[in-house]
């Protein structure tokens, strides 16, 4: 299959759509024109994109949890709890792992077992199995906008039912919901699937209904250097924009060094804007999302509050439009609603307390952000070159060549040569660059930064640093120093 970054033609799209809607009986419940009317009836206060853009204009940072359980009543209760007791500004509906893999039969079994047991036996809300009406009963029961969050390589039917079900924002992308979430899906396939999702959003956009789209920024969540995840975000933005998406939220997962984190959000925003403008998508709105630390958490709840709070602080100081909030149960398992609300309230305290402070224009941040932008240009130029000007073909080729390479990713289409490690201030640098085409200057920069740490720690730069860094936050540190 030859993938191209070209808007899907209507004929092809509607032919595919017919098949997609047949994948599970609930697909029948989707009627485009009816959905347009329904979506238009949703008040602005409950539209994701509207709330984001308002926050962006006011320089505020909104908070959003992750949450999803098997049964609609419990799911509504959970989300109500998070907006009342957790003071969440934006709501999620996290989808279960079976739905993510299109195993709707197993999801059905999970629903049935959950009904029997009277409690959730799934790790999320199975949107496809429930279909349009039940989703609408969820989205309409809440005061705040609701987004679908998942991790689904082939999310076409899920997108159809989600938008029809009254969700006004949708997470994911052909790269970001493949490489960290899958072992065997080829990138050609998942990019094509997500072109479908984006085209569908584009069609709604053309019909006057704007759905917010969010590429998944953190990827594997573990020591992903900003240039890697930011490059993926720009690529997914270009792919989405080509299909007609007009409202994008690009994301980044906290690394822990404040200067680098603020610089990452700053460069992410600037570069996404720049590339969208350069390739003719200047009417696309761009907002940002900052994910609180996505790697291994401390076991202890009080320590987790420390990590959560620091994430909220970095998000605000970096002027992210929203922050995705972790919970004090993170290291243990899916949180109770109380733990979830507690993480939210700790975060809310900081997003409101610090909203009038900004670190985006301090010299150290500008310097770091220039470095990230240079790195991104090295990568994105190469992607463009490999794709002969086409960013979809370029992406596939880039992963094949290791030009883009996500640390710790499970996908066999990821080259896996890159090894990140923290420098002496905790910023994430590249210990092995693999085939990421950084300039000589940048390579030297990374090497020097790691040598500084090695000198301080009196040990050579080595893979042991990577190991130590993976454990560090869980053990209470940022940098994994030798004992």
């Amino acid at each position, binding site marked *: 299959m030859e993938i191209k970054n070209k808007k899907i033609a209507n004929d092809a799209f509607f032919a595919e759509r017919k098949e997609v809607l047949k994948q599970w009986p609930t697909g029948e419940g989707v009627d485009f024109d009816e959905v347009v009317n329904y979506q238009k009836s949703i008040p602005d206060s409950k539209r994701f994109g509207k709330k984001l853009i308002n926050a962006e204009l006011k320089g505020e940072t909104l908070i959003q949890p992750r949450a999803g359980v098997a049964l609609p009543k419990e799911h509504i209760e959970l989300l109500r709890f998070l907006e009342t007791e957790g003071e969440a500004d934006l709501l999620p509906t996290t989808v279960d792992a079976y739905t993510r893999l299109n195993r709707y039969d197993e999801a059905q079994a999970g629903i049935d077992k959950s009904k029997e047991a009277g409690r959730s036996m799934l790790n999320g809300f199975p949107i496809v199995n429930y279909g349009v009406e039940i989703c609408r009963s969820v989205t309409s029961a809440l005061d705040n906008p609701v987004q679908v969050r998942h991790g689904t390589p082939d999310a076409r039917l899920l997108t159809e039912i989600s938008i029809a079900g009254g969700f006004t924002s949708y997470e994911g992308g052909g790269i970001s919901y493949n490489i960290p979430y899958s072992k*065997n899906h080829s990138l050609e396939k998942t990019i094509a699937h997500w072109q479908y999702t984006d085209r569908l959003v584009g069609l709604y956009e053309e019909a006057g209904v704007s759905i917010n789209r969010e590429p998944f920024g953190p990827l594997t969540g573990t020591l992903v250097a900003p240039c890697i995840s930011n490059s993926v975000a720009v690529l997914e933005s270009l792919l989405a924009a080509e299909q007609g998406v007009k409202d994008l939220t690009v994301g980044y997962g906290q690394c822990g060094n404040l200067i680098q984190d603020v610089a990452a959000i700053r460069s992410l925003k600037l570069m996404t804007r720049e590339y969208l403008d350069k390739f003719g998508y200047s009417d696309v709105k761009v907002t940002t999302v900052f994910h609180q630390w996505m790697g291994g958490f401390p076991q202890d709840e009080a320590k987790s509050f420390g990590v959560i709070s620091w994430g909220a602080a970095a998000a605000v100081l970096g002027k992210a439009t929203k922050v995705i909030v972790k919970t004090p149960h993170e290291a243990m398992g899916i949180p109770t609603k109380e733990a979830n609300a507690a993480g939210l309230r700790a975060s809310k305290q900081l997003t409101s307390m610090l909203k009038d402070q900004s670190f985006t224009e301090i010299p150290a941040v500008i310097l770091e952000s220039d470095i990230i932008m240079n790195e991104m240009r090295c990568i994105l130029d190469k992607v463009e070159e490999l794709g002969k000007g086409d960013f979809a073909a370029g992406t596939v080729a880039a992963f094949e060549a290791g030009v883009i390479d996500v640390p710790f990713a499970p996908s066999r289409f990821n080259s896996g040569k890159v090894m990140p490690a923290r420098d002496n201030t905790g910023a994430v640098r590249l210990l092995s660059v693999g085939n990421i085409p950084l300039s000589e200057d940048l390579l030297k920069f990374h090497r020097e930064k790691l040598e500084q740490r090695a000198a301080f720690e009196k040990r050579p730069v080595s893979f042991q640093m990577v190991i130590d860094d993976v454990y560090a936050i869980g053990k209470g540190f940022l940098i994994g120093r030798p004992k």
Partner: protein
Amino acid sequence: MKKRVIVTGVIGADVHAVGNKILAYALEEAGFHVVNLGVMVSQEEYIEAALETNADAILVSSLYGHGEIDCNGLRDKCDEAGLKDIILLAGGNIVVGKQDFKEVEKRFMDMGFTKVYPPGTQPETTIEDLNLMFAKK
């Protein structure tokens, strides 16, 4: 002395790859021969690999919460395949949510696991335990 052979992998539809990679590396460093199946491993794949490599232990990771469902029946399949007394360990975040580990442990021991590990288990613990178990054999 011949290196002990250990099969590792993340069971079911689970894609959490970080701990798997790190654990495999740590076990190699500790002198074991590691056959790492990566993520999304089925019960059959573990058994095949263990048979093929004449393995001394299978280390099953599960992070995403469905571990209890995914691990059920593995011991029986091992028995059927002739891996009679193979050491079978489970670790990660093997159940949904924060639960009392004593009870979780019991459920997994009843399923036939040799030993079960709570969230946040360090490789040192795993390595120490494996050495002890092998010493006894």
